[in-house]
């Protein structure tokens, strides 16, 4: 107990009890401290809050509101917008249920006075192919330090104030604009019922996944694509995602089990720069779900419960679910479990060799957009797994030599080489996509019954990249090596 006056309402660590008002102070301070310490979000920057309707994202939105309020010390100075993605189709909810959820969400978001976007996951089918490409050119170059940026921002504000535009009026117009745009958003983009064929296609795609593990992973990947797309098209350079440390501890364990060990720093760290132009930050990663739930309960922060894929699922129905029950069970007996796992994740960094690799389009996984972890030597575990898989699948064993034979014949023939190349190009088969993926996404995709159900922007981009690779191979001997340029 800090104040030693009021009666305690909750324990966070053993022997560390808080009263209501001390807890509020602690909670609010933690959020600002997180952003202040990491210095990633610059003043005046547009930030998209990825909002799921759950307790953590509601607490996050509430903290942003609090931080932007005028009387707050250490005021936050970015420009927020909120994105909600309705995933009802995947969980087989009826349109009526989804509509009800969305209007509940809309009511909460309207009350924030921030501009917001409500989308359905079906809009994946309207994404452009270019969305999976890195646009390195558009990465805003930040010259100077964070301190300078804050200084110049404050200077600008001051100049504005001197020009007679008072801060209050400025703020009012800002709110006014926010109000207008929120109305616009809710009227145009949101709530229009997605096309029935898109809903059907989405359901088809998820039904073609054989395991709940793959479904959950696929949903996570596709949701991220949609968030990235919204951020790019509306000019948000940061996305705030509300994962608590409990969720991140679970994700750490399940991602190791899913074969995403190489990307742990990106998947669980404070900032995730895999997309280049849009950076994901996780400001809630210092809070446990217990803290968040208590905060929401004690200070009446609303939240909407939306059934997910794993609602009412049994303990070992998916890797993610199993990791969660493992962590929560351990946590019940050993209260420092989550924090220990989470502190471990803080110490992880992407290895130097990965970051210095040329940021080539081909080197990124088509789905999760991480740097591929599959360029390993023949002595690696990855290669061994691949080999044993090939050997155990009799079908591919036969295919491999025959493909080699045909290649030889082709090359002998000379002319037919082009023909066969164009043939394989036009049909995007499983093989074509698989070699564009990281190890973990390969495993996920293997659990799908058919590739054709993936949204067309993925298939088209896969085809595009395959063609580029083949073209590169064809002209390889005429290319100057990257290394030779240095000499």
């Amino acid at each position, binding site marked *: 107990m800090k104040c030693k006056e009021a009666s305690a*309402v909750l324990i966070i660590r053993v022997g560390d009890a808080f009263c209501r008002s001390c807890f509020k102070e602690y909670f609010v301070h933690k959020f600002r401290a997180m952003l202040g310490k990491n210095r990633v979000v610059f003043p005046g920057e547009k930030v998209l809050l990825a909002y799921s309707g759950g307790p953590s994202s509601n607490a996050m939105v509430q903290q942003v509101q609090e931080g932007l309020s005028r009387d707050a010390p250490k005021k936050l100075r970015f420009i927020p917008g909120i994105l909600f993605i309705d995933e009802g189709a995947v969980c087989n909810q009826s349109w009526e249920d989804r509509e009800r959820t969305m209007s509940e969400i809309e009511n909460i978001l309207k009350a924030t006075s921030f501009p917001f976007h409500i989308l359905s996951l079906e809009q994946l089918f309207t994404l452009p192919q270019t969305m999976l490409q890195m646009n390195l050119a558009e990465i805003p170059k930040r010259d100077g330090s964070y301190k300078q940026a804050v200084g110049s921002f404050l200077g600008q504000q001051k100049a504005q104030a001197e020009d007679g535009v008072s801060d209050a009026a400025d703020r009012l117009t800002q709110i006014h604009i926010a109000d207008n745009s929120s109305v616009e958003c809710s009227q145009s983009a949101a709530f229009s019922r997605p096309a029935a064929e898109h809903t059907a296609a989405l359901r088809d795609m998820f039904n073609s996944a054989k395991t709940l593990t793959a479904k959950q992973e696929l949903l996570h990947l596709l949701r991220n694509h949609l968030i990235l797309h919204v951020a790019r098209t509306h000019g948000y350079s940061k996305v705030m995602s509300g994962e608590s440390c409990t969720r991140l501890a679970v994700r750490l364990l399940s991602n190791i089990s899913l074969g995403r060990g190489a990307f742990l720093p990106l998947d669980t760290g404070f900032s995730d720069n895999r997309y280049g132009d849009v950076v994901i930050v996780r400001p809630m990663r210092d809070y446990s779900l217990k803290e968040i*739930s208590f905060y929401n309960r004690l200070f009446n922060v609303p939240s909407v419960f939306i059934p*997910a894929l794993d609602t009412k699922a049994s303990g070992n129905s998916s890797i993610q679910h199993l990791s969660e029950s493992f962590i929560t069970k351990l946590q019940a007996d050993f209260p420092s479990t989550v924090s220990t796992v989470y502190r471990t994740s803080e110490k992880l960094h992407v290895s130097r060799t990965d970051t210095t690799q040329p940021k080539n389009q081909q080197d990124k996984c088509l789905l999760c957009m991480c740097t591929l972890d599959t360029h390993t030597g023949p002595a690696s575990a990855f290669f061994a797994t691949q080999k044993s898989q090939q050997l155990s699948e009799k079908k591919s064993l036969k295919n491999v030599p025959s493909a080699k034979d045909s290649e030889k014949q082709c090359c002998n023939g000379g002319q037919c080489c082009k023909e066969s190349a164009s043939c394989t190009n036009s049909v995007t088969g499983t093989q074509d996509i698989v070699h564009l993926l990281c190890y973990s996404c390969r495993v996920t995709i293997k659990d799908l019954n058919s590739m054709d159900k993936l949204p067309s922007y993925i298939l088209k981009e896969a085809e595009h990249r395959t063609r580029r690779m083949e073209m590169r191979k064809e002209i390889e001997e005429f290319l100057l090596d990257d290394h030779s340029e240095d000499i």
Partner: protein
Amino acid sequence: MVAPINLQLEFGGGAELLFDGVKKHHVTLPSQSDPWDIKHLLVWIKDNLLKERSELFIQGDTVRPGILVLVNDADWELMGELDYKLQDQDNIVFISTLHGG
């Protein structure tokens, strides 16, 4: 013998799904020889309120890990957990923090 006591039970974070989606319940616990504590209450909930899949709410003789319990808006860890002696008009809240409820 103790007199019957009235309680308000609340379920949140998805736990309400196991109770027909009803979040707030006003219940009266019958009189019994020992005073009511939370351990007894959980058994009573399991027998009288839970509609399905009791293992998603109660495991062993306590709540499933990941479900928070609040007694009159305070952490039950401060109140003696399972041994807390229920009083008339107490408000007990169960919040699931698990993904998907």
